[in-house]
């Protein structure tokens, strides 16, 4: 693929990530914001594919969009009436937040602009086989800790969200 085409593809993908992300934070209707987050997550999965991590792209779609987003939408349905636009979506510190975020973005850009990375030209192995090898040999302890964390989170969520019989 020619460099010009690659630049065009990258900027299209960046727009497909950043524009839904903007709508996630400014949309007046919280359900629409959640649906915009779905669009943003799909674009991020495409970016993972572009970077050569096809297994993680699949995990991103399965876990984020199939799991976390459905959970978020369920919680939205349980906590507010649908179709009712929020009166005021942002709190009083919006000016300071905008200022702080703009400052952080400029500092990050200023730092990244002058940095020269020791870029390696070897193709990284993104196959599921290489990842499974890493997950079950050097990273087997974090893998088991993650499963324990998921169990603890599941029990905690059930205990916290359960309605007491007396209430």
């Amino acid at each position, binding site marked *: 693929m020619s460099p010009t085409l690659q630049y065009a593809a990258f900027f299209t993908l960046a727009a497909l990530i950043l524009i839904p992300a903007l709508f996630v934070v400014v949309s007046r209707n919280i359900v629409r914001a959640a649906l915009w987050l779905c669009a943003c997550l799909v674009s991020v999965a495409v970016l993972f594919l572009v970077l050569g991590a096809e*297994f993680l792209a699949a995990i991103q779609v399965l876990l984020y969009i199939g799991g976390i987003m459905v959970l978020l939408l369920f919680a939205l349905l349980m906590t507010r009436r649908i179709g009712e636009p929020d009166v005021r979506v942002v709190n009083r510190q919006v000016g300071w937040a905008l200022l702080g975020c703009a400052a952080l973005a400029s500092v990050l850009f200023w730092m990244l602009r002058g940095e020269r*990375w020791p*870029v*390696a030209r070897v193709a990284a192995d993104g196959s599921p086989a290489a990842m499974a090898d890493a997950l079950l040999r050097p990273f087997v302890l*974090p893998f088991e800790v993650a499963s324990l964390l998921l169990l603890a989170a599941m029990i905690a969520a059930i205990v916290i969200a359960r309605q007491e019989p007396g209430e």
Partner: protein
Amino acid sequence: MNAIPLTWYLMLAALLFVIGLFGVLTRRHAIGALLGVELMLNAVNINLLAFWRHLHGTASAQVFVLIIITVAAAEAAVGLALILNVYRVFHTVDVDEINLMKG
């Protein structure tokens, strides 16, 4: 896409992180703040995978991203359970009105 420099990926991730941070700081709806947190976690994942693609060929970054997605799932489950419980007690999820501990 070999013509894209690493810095561009990092700038994209930085922008996504800042947008998510803005959402966390300004949303009045508690679940809206959680949506911002998800955006920030995704920015971190883009960063890790861009470094993985351009600097080293080892699979450790991919394992990191997998564990971050796992932690995000756990965070969403516990956070939403907390929000449901708050809604049951206060009948609102507006974080400005949940100020019982404000002196």
